[in-house]
């Protein structure tokens, strides 16, 4: 079949990529573009939807359909698209501010509904596009333009948030770890329903080296394997067990000196769009408008 012929190159749009030199977004873009052919879909069947932010520029660089929408609303827009067009592969690319600050509500509702969209959250723990204010994932005490004395906000743990919202697929990867990132993308794509993927992304301008603890010191990476003990955390991984996934989401470099990467949770649950489609299929009535408007008490005047 023809799609086998597609390569990463064919997923590059003609638009000049405009992230800062050295930005982690480049590596993620490259990984996604080279993964795309695996979907086995023609490019016109794929849509990338984003909000606003550096990360949200992503769709411009993909030779697919795409919408660079407004800040925080991508999950809602993607929901409408995915529900009305189950034939499409819909991807949301978002930042930590876009998805967890202004867009937090749309994110958790998409997760609980289990709409068939794949959410890639590029977490650089900063507001890049607006020039470096702290974000909901920035560590407490962070000194930024808007917090000269250090931020007093306690950060979200994005994976905990997703799990608290009853997400069916939750995973984490690292921008420069192409194999790890690719395998997570593969699992996410296979999953029916909403997949939430946090990707550690370096913002070398406003929050450089934020993830060196797993970048340079590879030994701090804890690649999760279903059924296997998760390092020395004392936790045996079970992708289908809620409490386990949650416990693993609390494992951080600060608490355990290691950071779990890979799939935290992956369970099957009917996706929202499947259920909607089923209701349409099973709906009673002939869909005859003339008989509808003429139904009930009517009377003739002549």
């Amino acid at each position, binding site marked *: 079949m023809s799609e086998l012929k597609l390569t990463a190159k064919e997923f590059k749009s003609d638009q000049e990529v405009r992230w800062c030199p050295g930005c982690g977004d480049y590596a993620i873009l490259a990984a996604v573009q080279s993964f795309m052919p695996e979907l086995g879909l023609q490019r016109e069947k794929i849509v990338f939807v984003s909000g606003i932010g550096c990360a949200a520029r992503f769709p411009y660089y993909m030779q697919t359909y795409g919408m660079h929408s407004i800040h925080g609303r991508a999950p809602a827009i993607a929901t409408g698209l995915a529900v009305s067009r189950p034939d499409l592969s819909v991807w949301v690319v978002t930042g930590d501010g876009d998805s967890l600050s202004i867009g937090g509500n749309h994110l958790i509702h998409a997760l609980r509904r289990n709409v068939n969209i794949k959410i890639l959250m590029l977490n650089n723990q900063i507001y890049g596009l607006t020039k470096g204010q702290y974000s909901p994932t920035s560590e407490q005490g962070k000194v930024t333009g808007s917090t000269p004395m250090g931020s007093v906000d306690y950060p979200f743990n994005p994976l905990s948030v997703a799990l608290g919202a009853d997400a069916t697929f939750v995973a984490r990867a690292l921008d420069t770890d192409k194999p790890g990132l690719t395998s997570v993308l593969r699992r996410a794509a296979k999953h029916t329903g909403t997949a939430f993927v946090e990707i550690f992304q370096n913002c070398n301008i406003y929050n450089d080296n934020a993830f060196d603890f797993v970048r340079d010191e590879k030994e701090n990476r804890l690649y999760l394997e279903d059924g296997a003990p998760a390092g020395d955390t004392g936790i045996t991984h079970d992708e289908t067990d809620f409490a386990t996934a949650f416990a693993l989401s609390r494992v951080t470099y600060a608490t355990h000196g290691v950071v779990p990467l890979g799939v935290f949770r992956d369970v099957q649950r009917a996706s929202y769009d499947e259920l909607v489609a089923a209701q349409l299929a099973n709906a009673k009535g002939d869909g005859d408008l003339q008989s509808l408007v003429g139904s009930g008490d009517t009377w*003739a005047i002549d």
Partner: protein
Amino acid sequence: MAKPVEQLDSVVIRFAGDSGDGMQLTGGRFTAETALAGNDLATFPDFPAEIRAPAGSLPGVSGFQLHFADHDILTPGDQPDVLVAMNPAALKTNLGDLPKAGTLIVDTDAFTERNLKKAGYESNPIEDGSLEGYQVHAVPLTSMTVGALKEIEGVTAREAERAKNMFALGLMSWLYGRSTETTKEFISTKFAKRPGIAAANLKAFATGYAFGETSEAFAVQYQVKAAKLPPGRYRQITGNVALSWGLLAASKLSGLPLFLGAYPITPASSILEELAKHKAFGVRTFQAEDEIAAVGAALGAAFGGALGVTTSAGPGIVLKSETVGLAVALELPLLVIDVQRAGPSTGMPTKPEQGDLLMVLHGRNSESPVPVIAAAGPGDCFYAAIEAVRVAVTYRTPVYLLSDAYLANGAEPWLVPDIASLEKIDVEFASGNNETFQPYKRDPETLARPWAIPGTPGLEHRIGGLEKANITGNISYDPENHDLMTQLRAQKVAGVRVPDLEVDHQEGADLLVLSWGGTYGPVHAGVGRVRKAAGKAAHAHLRWLNPFPANLRDVLKSYDRVLIPEMNMGQLLQLVRARYLVDAVGYNRVTGKPFKAGEIAAAVEALQ
């Protein structure tokens, strides 16, 4: 021996009682019987705000007014001829509207110490003579109902009592010579699962009817002849149902699957609820987490080639503004329906107002032009929805459709449309060709850009809210391009083809009354009264608020004076004065109640 029958040409009846007394049901049924009798009619259900007030309290009063006649009428009537008051609170809150000599039917059983106190009566108005001057029929509705239902199996006293509204309905049905068949059917089907209750209500209904026949209290029976309406099959319809069905029609006419993104809010919720019933029409209804998600999902669906619609009322419409602004930049079809209610802020959720016109025109950041249409009556909501969709789809633009809380719930007889005869809505999706695709290359005629939906090979493209270069659609910060795109967006909307304004001119009239939206009925009736009183006035009603009909300027200039009645502080007034520099004056009342024909007539006469 049958009682004498008196002919009337029109009657206004108001049923008023506690929220628990089933006045909406009673009114609805009487309306149905009246419609079947061939009268023209208009109704005004006036139930309390979202809260359920305690039984018997003043805020708990629920009312339903029905105006029916042997001729063409346009409003539920300024004041009732007959008031049915089921308890003291209902009497207290409604008596003021009943003209002296008006007919008053009260349930004496409800006038207990407790209820009187709740309504703030020192003494019992039925006994203290304060009802003098009215034709009072003091009837022990409750006890007669309970009495009549004694022998019925398995009906509790409470249930028997609750059937008193059917007694009242029966009585009124006799009084106006209504056929009782449909109501009996209705009761039987409604309570099919609970035969005891069905029997109780049927019995109560029959007893009330019989009471009318036999009681001394009612000397005559009234008759209102059928009205001469255009021939055809009629039904009753409320604005929100008509609007919902109009969307179904638009979906059918355009061949686009309907996607409704909505978040519940009074008085728009019933559109979501009506459309949710019609999945057989391929309708997808999405109850979103909030209004922003609702419009976002509708826009996403539109990007995918669906007919994207979102519904709300003021407090929710305002939240959609940013996303509508995105739709303006994306130039995708999107229908935003605003069922207006009284504000500001939460305001009075169940009451109508025309306060959102300037918001939908100007409530977005920067220059963000959007067409706006307003429905004129309950039945017109059907056609307004189709027109709105036609423009949205043809010009690839968001469109606002304005209704209001009065149209939403008000009912009127409606000529059942012949679906086959409705004009199709042409939709043409872009299809691949060899040239590179240019998402912002416009149709020279409509200035619409191509609608290229995902799944179309070769048209992969990206759109967004940043300013785009004309034709290519690439991001552009070029100053001249921004000025050009701003002009093009404005021209596209200004160029939307809307029908010329029709004027109901009167020979010799130098005053034009210009109205819009839900006030058509009272304004037209008001002008009619002026004419009856030998005054002179022309009337024109605007359907499209943006763009204005091409002939509006000439129409305005051909009158010496222009009066613009609005249920706001003068919003259309501002637009008309600014655009045409005519010294139009406003009649502005913001009470949360629909205009009365009488006040409009008075306002017009004040200018004669």
